[in-house]
């Protein structure tokens, strides 16, 4: 079951959003994360909703992937909606339930906040659904590069990201193996008080660390043996390309921001 966990959420279809450079998508998401908070009354929320629907349609990603992305925050959205519905006392009373009066202002606020969280989540999942993780790390490396003079290892960080993603399934497999090995030696992880369980856990954690460090050392030796010497002067197999469509995408996002700022109720 552990081995079946999907790493990354990329959906391989062809669409205008898939063709964009990962850098322009990163910039757009950053801008949209601010723009979402500009909406504060009916028409601006409507414009925001229209933008989200347009982007989702442009991505050509099946809707069930967005539903899957929304599911983890669904409870949060329902909770905030109820919080507002029950505790905001504005507007007129719609009806009473369990001694609480539900005001129209509360429902309105609840719906607005739900749209705000929902569109943030959908816009954010658009990035990971339409961009390969490797392109994202490359894009990220590009933005981190200026900080190199402050001692931030941009290239190394991008490399560490890719390696760690690859290491997760390996480590899960290793953990499973150690647990079975210790169980064969008589360790019982399911019985006993919390204290004995934690003690048994040490018999799991220490071997896991020892084996992991051994593996890390082996891989580092392999890298050194092949002459790896860091990011300086290193070329890439696939180079990111900024095209006209990327500039257009950024302008469109800027336009959305301007429209929302105008519609906004001050």
């Amino acid at each position, binding site marked *: 079951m552990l081995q079946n966990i999907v790493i990354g959420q990329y959906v391989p279809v062809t669409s205008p959003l898939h063709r964009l450079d990962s850098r322009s998508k990163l910039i757009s998401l950053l801008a949209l994360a601010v723009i979402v908070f500009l909406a504060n009354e009916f028409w601006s929320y409507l414009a925001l909703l229209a933008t989200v629907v347009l982007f989702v349609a442009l991505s050509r990603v099946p809707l069930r992937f967005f539903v899957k992305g929304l599911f983890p925050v669904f409870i949060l959205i329902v909770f905030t909606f109820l*919080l507002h519905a029950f*505790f905001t006392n504005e507007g007129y009373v719609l009806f009473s339930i369990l001694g609480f009066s539900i005001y129209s202002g509360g429902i309105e*606020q609840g719906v607005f906040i739900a749209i705000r969280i929902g569109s943030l989540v959908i816009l954010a999942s658009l990035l990971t659904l339409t961009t390969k993780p490797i392109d994202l790390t490359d894009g990220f490396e590009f933005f981190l590069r200026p900080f190199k003079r402050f001692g931030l290892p941009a290239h190394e960080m991008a490399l560490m990201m890719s390696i*760690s993603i690859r290491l997760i399934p390996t480590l899960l497999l290793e953990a499973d193996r150690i647990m079975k090995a210790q169980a064969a030696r008589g360790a019982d992880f399911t019985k006993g008080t919390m204290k004995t369980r934690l003690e048994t856990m040490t018999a799991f954690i*220490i071997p896991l660390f020892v084996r992991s*460090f051994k*593996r890390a050392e082996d891989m580092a030796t392999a890298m*050194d043996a092949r002459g790896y010497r860091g990011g300086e002067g290193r070329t890439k197999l696939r180079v990111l390309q900024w095209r006209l469509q990327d500039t257009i995408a950024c302008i469109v996002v800027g336009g959305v921001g301007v429209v929302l700022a105008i519609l906004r109720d001050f």
Partner: protein
Amino acid sequence: MKSIDIMTIAMFVAMMAVAANITAIFPFLVFAGIPLTFQPLIAILAGAVLGSRRGAVTMVVYTIVGLLGAPVFAQFHAGPAMLVRPTFGFILSFIVAAYVVGKIIEKSHNPQLFTYIIASFIGLAFNYFIGTHWVYFAYVLGFNAPDQFTYGIVWLGMLPLLIKDIFFTIAAAVIAQKLPESVKRPFIGKGAVSH
């Protein structure tokens, strides 16, 4: 940064991902519907074993990997949607926690078990302080929570988790002290392989 640093940091990031979802391996660690995580333990270990700088880099990489869509956060959550979850502050606090723990142990000339325990608890304090304040301000500023949602309620919700984390923090200190000799290489101070 040498290749051994790159590999150990990547290994710790993967370790964080496993620790966050430890209940997938040990299903009995689900208490009252709340799945326990080992994240603070690994964050403290990263700082104590790798040192302040590399420990902090580990947690930064972990955060970015998760935000870029790999399911490394608790309950296999992933993607930029994590930014709007109120518990995101805890993820950010791991960076500070790892750095602080590493710094304290680096500064001490002859770290004993007691030093490790003190350092670990200071790290945990940062973890809870930043995380809980983030939860509070996320609800108040982000979701316009009404007045009934008070500062005290947030801390009350954190209390059960704190008990488990006190256990894990002691465990982290004990493991952190033993680990360098178990893997037969010092990471910090005299004889450290690389910086």
